[in-house]
Protein backbone atom coordinates (compact mmCIF):
# COMPACT_ATOMS: atom_id res chain seq x y z
CA UNK A 1 0.00 0.00 0.00
CA UNK A 2 2.76 2.39 0.93
CA UNK A 3 4.45 2.11 -2.48
CA UNK A 4 1.36 3.65 -4.09
CA UNK A 5 1.67 6.60 -1.78
CA UNK A 6 5.42 7.10 -2.22
CA UNK A 7 5.04 9.44 -5.22
CA UNK A 8 2.50 11.45 -3.25
CA UNK A 9 4.81 11.68 -0.25
CA UNK A 10 7.62 12.95 -2.48
CA UNK A 11 5.29 15.56 -3.99
CA UNK A 12 4.26 16.50 -0.48
CA UNK A 13 7.89 17.22 0.40
CA UNK A 14 8.03 19.46 -2.69
CA UNK A 15 4.94 21.31 -1.55
CA UNK A 16 6.40 21.84 1.91
CA UNK A 17 9.69 23.10 0.42
CA UNK A 18 7.96 25.51 -1.95
CA UNK A 19 5.87 26.85 0.88
CA UNK A 20 8.98 27.58 2.94
CA UNK A 21 10.43 29.31 -0.15
CA UNK A 22 7.23 31.35 -0.49
CA UNK A 23 7.42 32.40 3.17
CA UNK A 24 11.04 33.49 2.76
CA UNK A 25 10.20 35.44 -0.42
CA UNK A 26 7.34 37.17 1.39
CA UNK A 27 9.75 38.07 4.15
CA UNK A 28 12.15 39.55 1.56
CA UNK A 29 9.40 41.59 -0.07
CA UNK A 30 7.94 42.81 3.20
CA UNK A 31 11.36 43.93 4.38
CA UNK A 32 12.53 45.51 1.12
CA UNK A 33 12.68 48.90 2.86
CA UNK A 34 13.63 47.76 6.38
CA UNK A 35 16.66 49.66 7.64
CA UNK A 36 16.90 48.08 11.06
CA UNK A 37 16.86 44.45 12.13
CA UNK A 38 17.61 42.52 15.28
CA UNK A 39 20.35 40.54 13.56
CA UNK A 40 23.71 41.61 12.13
CA UNK A 41 24.26 44.40 14.65
CA UNK A 42 21.03 46.27 13.97
CA UNK A 43 21.91 46.87 10.31
CA UNK A 44 19.45 46.73 7.42
CA UNK A 45 17.49 43.55 6.64
CA UNK A 46 19.48 41.03 4.64
CA UNK A 47 17.94 39.15 1.75
CA UNK A 48 17.35 35.44 2.43
CA UNK A 49 17.28 32.47 0.14
CA UNK A 50 16.31 28.84 0.67
CA UNK A 51 18.70 26.00 -0.09
CA UNK A 52 17.07 22.76 -1.23
CA UNK A 53 18.73 19.37 -0.72
CA UNK A 54 17.68 16.00 -2.13
CA UNK A 55 17.08 13.35 0.52
CA UNK A 56 16.60 9.61 -0.05
CA UNK A 57 12.95 8.90 0.66
CA UNK A 58 11.88 6.56 3.44
CA UNK A 59 14.02 4.86 6.04
CA UNK A 60 17.44 3.44 5.30
CA UNK A 61 16.31 -0.14 5.80
CA UNK A 62 13.42 0.32 3.43
CA UNK A 63 15.86 1.56 0.81
CA UNK A 64 17.75 -1.69 1.21
CA UNK A 65 14.58 -3.67 0.54
CA UNK A 66 13.81 -1.64 -2.53
CA UNK A 67 17.30 -2.51 -3.80
CA UNK A 68 18.60 -0.06 -6.37
CA UNK A 69 15.42 1.92 -6.77
CA UNK A 70 15.16 3.01 -3.16
CA UNK A 71 18.06 5.40 -3.40
CA UNK A 72 16.85 6.81 -6.73
CA UNK A 73 13.74 8.30 -5.19
CA UNK A 74 14.61 11.44 -3.37
CA UNK A 75 12.43 13.95 -1.63
CA UNK A 76 13.37 17.60 -1.27
CA UNK A 77 14.21 19.23 2.03
CA UNK A 78 15.02 22.80 2.96
CA UNK A 79 18.36 22.39 4.71
CA UNK A 80 19.49 25.97 4.97
CA UNK A 81 18.20 29.51 4.80
CA UNK A 82 21.05 31.37 3.26
CA UNK A 83 21.63 35.01 4.17
CA UNK A 84 22.78 37.27 1.36
CA UNK A 85 26.23 38.73 2.04
CA UNK A 86 25.94 41.52 -0.52
CA UNK A 87 26.69 45.03 0.71
CA UNK A 88 23.62 47.08 1.61
CA UNK A 89 22.44 49.68 -0.89
CA UNK A 90 23.42 53.21 0.25
CA UNK A 91 20.76 55.86 -0.29
CA UNK A 92 21.15 59.57 0.41
CA UNK A 93 18.39 60.64 2.84
CA UNK A 94 19.60 62.98 5.62
CA UNK A 95 16.14 63.15 7.23
CA UNK A 96 16.04 59.42 7.87
CA UNK A 97 16.56 58.52 11.55
CA UNK A 98 19.04 55.80 10.55
CA UNK A 99 21.16 58.08 8.35
CA UNK A 100 24.89 58.23 9.14
CA UNK A 101 26.87 61.45 9.50
CA UNK A 102 27.07 61.86 5.70
CA UNK A 103 23.29 61.51 5.39
CA UNK A 104 23.52 58.05 3.82
CA UNK A 105 21.04 55.31 4.80
CA UNK A 106 21.86 51.62 4.40
CA UNK A 107 18.90 49.99 2.62
CA UNK A 108 18.47 46.23 2.08
CA UNK A 109 19.93 45.03 -1.21
CA UNK A 110 16.62 43.63 -2.45
CA UNK A 111 15.41 43.86 -6.03
CA UNK A 112 11.62 43.72 -5.82
CA UNK A 113 11.42 42.52 -9.44
CA UNK A 114 13.69 39.54 -8.71
CA UNK A 115 11.61 38.62 -5.70
CA UNK A 116 8.39 38.82 -7.72
CA UNK A 117 9.83 36.58 -10.44
CA UNK A 118 11.00 34.10 -7.80
CA UNK A 119 7.54 34.19 -6.30
CA UNK A 120 5.96 33.28 -9.64
CA UNK A 121 8.49 30.46 -9.96
CA UNK A 122 7.59 29.21 -6.48
CA UNK A 123 3.88 29.30 -7.29
CA UNK A 124 4.41 27.41 -10.52
CA UNK A 125 6.62 24.83 -8.78
CA UNK A 126 3.89 24.36 -6.16
CA UNK A 127 1.33 23.86 -8.92
CA UNK A 128 3.59 21.34 -10.63
CA UNK A 129 3.85 19.34 -7.41
CA UNK A 130 0.07 19.42 -6.95
CA UNK A 131 -0.34 18.19 -10.54
CA UNK A 132 2.14 15.37 -9.94
CA UNK A 133 0.24 14.40 -6.81
CA UNK A 134 -3.13 14.44 -8.60
CA UNK A 135 -1.71 12.30 -11.39
CA UNK A 136 -0.36 9.80 -8.86
CA UNK A 137 -3.84 9.66 -7.37
CA UNK A 138 -5.40 9.24 -10.82
CA UNK A 139 -3.06 6.30 -11.47
CA UNK A 140 -4.02 4.63 -8.20
CA UNK A 141 -7.71 5.16 -8.92
CA UNK A 142 -7.26 3.80 -12.44
CA UNK A 143 -5.60 0.69 -11.02
CA UNK A 144 -8.72 0.09 -8.92
CA UNK A 145 -10.73 -0.09 -12.11
CA UNK A 146 -8.84 -3.18 -13.27
CA UNK A 147 -11.23 -6.06 -13.83
CA UNK A 148 -14.33 -4.06 -13.14
Amino acid at each position, binding site marked *: *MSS*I*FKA*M*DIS*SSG*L*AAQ*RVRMNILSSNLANAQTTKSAENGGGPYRRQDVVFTANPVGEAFENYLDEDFGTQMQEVKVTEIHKDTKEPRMVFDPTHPHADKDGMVAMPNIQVMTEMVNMIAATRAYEANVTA*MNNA*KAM*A*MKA*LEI*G*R
Partner: protein
Amino acid sequence: MSTSMISNNHQAMESMIGELRDIKSKAESLSTSIGEDNSSKSSGKSFADHMMDEIKEVNDLHIQSDKMAADLATGKSENLHETMLAATKAEIGFNYIVQLRNKILDAYQEVMRMQV
Protein backbone atom coordinates in the same frame (compact mmCIF):
# COMPACT_ATOMS: atom_id res chain seq x y z
CA MET B 1 -12.76 16.22 2.75
CA SER B 2 -15.03 17.25 5.57
CA THR B 3 -14.96 15.57 8.95
CA SER B 4 -18.55 14.42 8.59
CA MET B 5 -17.67 12.67 5.32
CA ILE B 6 -14.78 10.94 7.03
CA SER B 7 -16.97 9.78 9.90
CA ASN B 8 -19.48 8.55 7.33
CA ASN B 9 -16.67 6.53 5.82
CA HIS B 10 -15.96 5.16 9.27
CA GLN B 11 -19.53 3.96 9.55
CA ALA B 12 -19.41 2.47 6.08
CA MET B 13 -16.24 0.65 7.04
CA GLU B 14 -17.75 -0.65 10.26
CA SER B 15 -20.71 -2.06 8.35
CA MET B 16 -18.31 -3.54 5.80
CA ILE B 17 -16.36 -5.25 8.59
CA GLY B 18 -19.66 -6.65 9.87
CA GLU B 19 -20.53 -7.92 6.41
CA LEU B 20 -17.16 -9.62 6.06
CA ARG B 21 -17.54 -11.24 9.50
CA ASP B 22 -20.89 -12.52 8.29
CA ILE B 23 -19.36 -13.99 5.16
CA LYS B 24 -16.54 -15.50 7.19
CA SER B 25 -18.90 -17.21 9.63
CA LYS B 26 -21.06 -18.48 6.75
CA ALA B 27 -18.01 -19.86 4.98
CA GLU B 28 -16.82 -21.49 8.18
CA SER B 29 -20.19 -23.09 8.86
CA LEU B 30 -20.24 -24.32 5.26
CA SER B 31 -16.78 -25.83 5.52
CA THR B 32 -17.62 -27.56 8.83
CA SER B 33 -20.89 -28.89 7.45
CA ILE B 34 -19.11 -30.57 4.56
CA GLY B 35 -16.73 -32.10 7.07
CA GLU B 36 -13.56 -30.27 6.17
CA ASP B 37 -11.05 -30.25 9.00
CA ASN B 38 -9.78 -26.84 9.99
CA SER B 39 -6.15 -27.85 10.25
CA SER B 40 -5.21 -25.38 7.51
CA LYS B 41 -6.41 -22.56 9.75
CA SER B 42 -3.88 -23.26 12.46
CA SER B 43 -0.99 -23.22 9.98
CA GLY B 44 -1.42 -19.54 9.18
CA LYS B 45 -3.72 -16.59 8.76
CA SER B 46 -6.94 -17.19 6.93
CA PHE B 47 -7.99 -15.08 3.99
CA ALA B 48 -10.54 -13.28 6.15
CA ASP B 49 -7.79 -12.35 8.60
CA HIS B 50 -5.71 -10.88 5.78
CA MET B 51 -8.74 -8.97 4.64
CA MET B 52 -9.30 -7.67 8.16
CA ASP B 53 -5.66 -6.51 8.33
CA GLU B 54 -6.16 -4.65 5.06
CA ILE B 55 -9.31 -2.99 6.37
CA LYS B 56 -7.57 -2.05 9.61
CA GLU B 57 -4.75 -0.45 7.62
CA VAL B 58 -7.22 1.65 5.64
CA ASN B 59 -9.16 2.45 8.80
CA ASP B 60 -5.91 3.77 10.29
CA LEU B 61 -5.56 6.04 7.23
CA HIS B 62 -9.03 7.38 7.96
CA ILE B 63 -8.31 7.91 11.63
CA GLN B 64 -5.10 9.73 10.70
CA SER B 65 -6.94 11.90 8.16
CA ASP B 66 -9.68 12.61 10.71
CA LYS B 67 -7.13 13.65 13.32
CA MET B 68 -5.25 15.91 10.91
CA ALA B 69 -8.49 17.59 9.78
CA ALA B 70 -9.45 18.21 13.41
CA ASP B 71 -5.95 19.54 14.22
CA LEU B 72 -6.12 21.90 11.25
CA ALA B 73 -9.58 23.12 12.20
CA THR B 74 -8.61 23.74 15.81
CA GLY B 75 -5.38 25.44 14.80
CA LYS B 76 -3.12 22.79 16.33
CA SER B 77 -1.35 22.31 13.01
CA GLU B 78 -0.89 24.41 9.89
CA ASN B 79 -0.17 21.54 7.54
CA LEU B 80 -2.75 22.29 4.89
CA HIS B 81 -1.28 20.16 2.11
CA GLU B 82 -0.42 17.24 4.39
CA THR B 83 -4.00 17.21 5.65
CA MET B 84 -5.25 17.09 2.07
CA LEU B 85 -2.72 14.34 1.34
CA ALA B 86 -3.98 12.29 4.30
CA ALA B 87 -7.56 12.74 3.08
CA THR B 88 -6.54 11.65 -0.43
CA LYS B 89 -4.74 8.60 0.94
CA ALA B 90 -7.82 7.70 2.96
CA GLU B 91 -9.97 8.13 -0.15
CA ILE B 92 -7.76 5.84 -2.27
CA GLY B 93 -7.59 3.30 0.54
CA PHE B 94 -11.34 3.33 0.95
CA ASN B 95 -11.90 2.86 -2.76
CA TYR B 96 -9.44 -0.03 -2.68
CA ILE B 97 -11.35 -1.72 0.14
CA VAL B 98 -14.66 -1.19 -1.67
CA GLN B 99 -13.28 -2.81 -4.82
CA LEU B 100 -11.85 -5.68 -2.77
CA ARG B 101 -15.25 -6.17 -1.11
CA ASN B 102 -16.98 -6.20 -4.50
CA LYS B 103 -14.57 -8.82 -5.75
CA ILE B 104 -15.04 -11.01 -2.68
CA LEU B 105 -18.82 -10.72 -2.82
CA ASP B 106 -18.75 -11.59 -6.53
CA ALA B 107 -16.68 -14.68 -5.79
CA TYR B 108 -18.94 -15.65 -2.90
CA GLN B 109 -22.09 -15.25 -4.98
CA GLU B 110 -20.49 -17.19 -7.81
CA VAL B 111 -19.81 -20.07 -5.43
CA MET B 112 -23.33 -19.89 -3.98
CA ARG B 113 -24.82 -20.07 -7.47
CA MET B 114 -22.94 -23.29 -8.15
CA GLN B 115 -25.04 -26.31 -9.16
CA VAL B 116 -24.73 -29.21 -6.79
